[in-house]
């Protein structure tokens, strides 16, 4: 079998009765009738409701957990343990005055919150939240959609979500939001490359782009999960890149309160602000789901057969448990780590993550194609990495001034003393 054959054709494991390379949802194997349409609509509505509900719970969970970590009590007024606090906040925001700044671009200003929310929702549609179930003669997958381009939808939507942040800052017609949005777009574009390269590594070993096939390929047991099979490095790169992509702490320079007032959403109020807030937390949940899908086998896990009908719902329990670990991780990181400086952020992205993920991708490909001869590739990579490191060192030793547009540079570095009294008289 040729290289390409092993690239896409090797994992011809059947997914719900179909080859993973085509990965059609078994629901449509008998054509499309009204029953299938109803099932699809139900899947969409359930996913939407569950996602919104879990976002509400996530906001409460984050506030409560951070309070615990900081020896505070946190929300405790609305409902038992403050459970209804998010709902109360939402109702309050809904009835607040909806301000549109005078100098804003009204259309884009109103459009931007939806451009952040919709991609976060759409990403969730390709995440497999459970196994393949058969209910009343209809076999279908527990996920909203299983398109053949699968995981590329995640990349596409995460690259689209740049627009919401970027346009929100620009359309506000205000200084700090603009700075925040420029930072955001630079940051998100920078980390997208590393993100894509790690996803490619997963796709290479799975042999398919479909999220269902990626999950099915990690199925038998936990040592088949991609996190172990790829070596842990791609997973670590992915975690860092996705955190930066979501603008979560410690990469939340976009809304660095100490520098930018509130960042890109400074000028937003009322329900539009609530949409940004919602989108951020929805992003945490969906991206945790994506990580579980790509590296931790998705809904894979041992099923207790002695419980009746556990085949249907127990994979979803595994999925939820794995996602919950990541949600906890994100709150923990937010409480524990300080925010990076902007130049550190860019250095991590361009000088560390991209070369590392590229090298690891080559390693994965070389191991698959050449077996032990991949050690040669690794040796070459280490040598090239040394050259790259040397280049970074030499570059950082050079005068920073030469890299900046000259008049700006000299303006920055020419010290202008305060005029003394006698000079003023002159």
């Amino acid at each position, binding site marked *: 079998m040729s290289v390409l054959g092993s690239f896409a054709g090797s994992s011809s494991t059947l997914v719900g009765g179909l080859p993973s390379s085509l990965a059609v949802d078994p629901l449509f194997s008998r054509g499309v009738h009204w029953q299938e349409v109803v099932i699809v609509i139900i899947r969409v509505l359930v996913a939407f409701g569950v996602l919104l509900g879990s976002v509400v719970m996530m906001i409460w969970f984050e506030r409560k957990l951070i309070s615990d970590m900081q020896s505070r009590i946190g929300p405790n007024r609305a409902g038992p343990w403050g459970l209804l606090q998010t709902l109360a906040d939402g109702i309050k925001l809904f009835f607040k005055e909806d301000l549109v700044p005078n100098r804003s671009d009204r259309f884009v200003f109103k459009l931007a919150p939806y451009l952040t929310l919709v991609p976060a929702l759409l990403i969730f549609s390709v995440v497999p939240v459970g196994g393949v179930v058969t209910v009343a003669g209809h076999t279908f997958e527990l996920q909203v959609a299983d398109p053949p381009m699968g995981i*590329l939808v995640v*990349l596409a939507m995460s690259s689209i979500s740049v627009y919401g942040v970027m346009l929100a800052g620009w359309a506000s017609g205000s200084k700090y939001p603009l700075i925040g949005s420029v930072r955001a777009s630079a940051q998100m574009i920078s980390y*997208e490359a590393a993100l894509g390269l790690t996803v490619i590594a997963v796709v290479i070993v799975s042999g398919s782009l479909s999220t269902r096939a990626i999950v099915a390929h990690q199925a038998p047991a936990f040592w088949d999960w991609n996190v172990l099979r790829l070596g842990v490095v791609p997973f670590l790169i992915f975690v860092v890149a996705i955190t930066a992509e979501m603008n979560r702490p410690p990469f939340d320079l976009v809304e660095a309160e100490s520098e930018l007032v509130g960042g890109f959403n400074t000028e937003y109020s009322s329900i539009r602000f609530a949409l940004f807030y919602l989108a951020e937390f929805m992003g945490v949940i969906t991206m945790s789901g994506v990580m579980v899908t790509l590296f931790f086998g998705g809904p894979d896990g041992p099923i207790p057969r002695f419980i009746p009908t556990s085949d249907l719902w127990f994979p979803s329990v595994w999925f939820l448990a794995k996602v919950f670990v990541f949600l906890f991780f994100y709150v923990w990181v937010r409480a524990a780590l300080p925010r990076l400086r902007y130049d550190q952020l860019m250095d991590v992205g361009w000088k560390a993550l991209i070369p590392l993920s590229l090298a690891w991708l080559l390693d994965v490909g070389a191991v698959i194609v050449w077996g032990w001869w991949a050690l040669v590739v690794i040796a070459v990579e280490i040598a090239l990495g040394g050259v790259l490191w040397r280049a970074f060192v030499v570059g950082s030793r050079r005068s920073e001034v030469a890299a900046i547009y000259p008049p700006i*540079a000299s303006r920055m570095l020419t010290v202008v003393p305060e*005029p003394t009294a006698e000079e003023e008289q002159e």
Partner: protein
Amino acid sequence: MNPSQVNVIGMDLVAAVHKTGPDIATFVVSAIIIIAGAIGVVFSRNPVHAALSLVMTLFGVAVLFIEQQADFLAAVQIIVYAGAIVVLFLFVIMFLGVDRRENIAAEPLHWQRPLALVLMAAALAGVIALGVGSHWATGQQAVAGSTTAGGHSNVYLLGKSVFTTYLYAFEATAALLVIAVVGAVVLARRPSLPSVEPETDARGAAVSGQPGPDGGLHDAAPRGSAAQDASPADVRAGQSLVKEAGR
């Protein structure tokens, strides 16, 4: 389920779905999106709105790709064009501060619009004439064969043809892009300065003793003791000149 059945589901579903009601509806909706976006690009007064209209057009094209079973192209269309290139457009627009409304009635080149109309009419007439008169329009999805031939995924087929049949074209394009990037870096780079870091003279006052970046605007005479007394004012004068030059 044996392979032939798989093939039946994979291929005949496609054949059955093709050119049915939903198919035509998809085409019409995405065509409307594409054309509305294209008109928006041309007629928007604000460059940011024009860029957003371009995103809309790209989305419509992506939907058409999906409708043609070219899923991978659709995803790449969104990731590369909408997600990276138009974002860079917006970046430039925002940084250069050209994001203000323009009077599109103002016309720097008077013959431009009539010429554009004539050329557009000629191109349209050519396309229609070819569509009607020639046998080029075969109704095939792709000249290189079906996008899901033999039960393989779209990515597999695309990857195979890119890395076998069209390998040289592919590599040549890659080389072209790298050369373009290197060229852009070389063109954007200014000649490096010897050093414009402030030097500290005997009195501790910062002076600028090096040739300035602006052609020596504050490159004063060699600084002796007499010059030292005047140095702060001198530097400030140079500074204001630099500011003038910067505008």
